[in-house]
């Protein structure tokens, strides 16, 4: 096993932690944090492969993932703040007003 494979394992574990957080927590902000952890794990994989293959594509992609994650967190937190303003006790379980 090459040393860099350990980085991939760490990224896989971080992804699983983020997924568990996004799927199991009630609070919508924690769901967003879980998604951020998953994006970070994907970035770690990109950088590891970029180092492994000496390719510039991985590190360039990290830049785009960072920007998209920033856009996502801005919109997500704006929506959460708007929802909480309307219903102070909102959790991810209760946010089903779009349900028919």
């Amino acid at each position, binding site marked *: 096993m090459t040393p860099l494979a350990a980085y991939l394992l760490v990224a896989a574990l*971080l*992804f699983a932690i983020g997924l568990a957080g996004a799927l199991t927590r009630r609070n919508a902000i924690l769901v967003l944090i879980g998604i951020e952890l998953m994006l970070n794990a994907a970035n770690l994989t990109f950088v590891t492969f970029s*180092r492994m293959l000496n390719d510039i594509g991985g590190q360039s992609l990290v830049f785009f993932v960072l920007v998209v994650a920033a856009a996502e967190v801005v919109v997500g937190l704006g929506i959460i703040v708007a929802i909480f303003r309307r219903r102070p006790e909102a959790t991810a379980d209760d946010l089903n007003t779009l349900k028919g």
Partner: protein
Amino acid sequence: MTPVFYILAALTLAGGLASVLLKNLVHCALAVSIAFLGVALLFLSLDAQFAGFAQILIYIGAVAILVVFAILLTRGSDLPKESVFSRTWLAGLIIAAAVFAVLGWAVISSASALPSAAAVPAVTVHDIGAALVGRYVLPLEIVALLLTSATIGAVIVALHEKEKAQ
């Protein structure tokens, strides 16, 4: 494998676990910024200076602060009366464990086929800058448009209720 890697990996995973498990949302935000810092240091240990410093600036400098602001604006710092975990937590945990099993199996079973890193990293910050304004200039423009529209959209979404109330 150096001890530095083990320390950084333990820091990152402990921060991630704590952010998922802790009750108080403010503590979660602090734990997640530790996880972000750990990932940034892992980037630096992989000779990815650009990714590492961009990670520190964007995630610890902006995203963590935004999350703390959102927690304070939504009174999320009060401890919840009921369980912090959703009703379907067991299914979520099983899905996450299955995903980790698949990813870990894929990494371990292909580990012998992975190339080992070259002694001298060939990718420099200069190369990334040149690629971003050369080969990737169209994605760069699109991502700039996305960021602008996301910022405007977030302001409109967050302001909406106030306008109605007046």
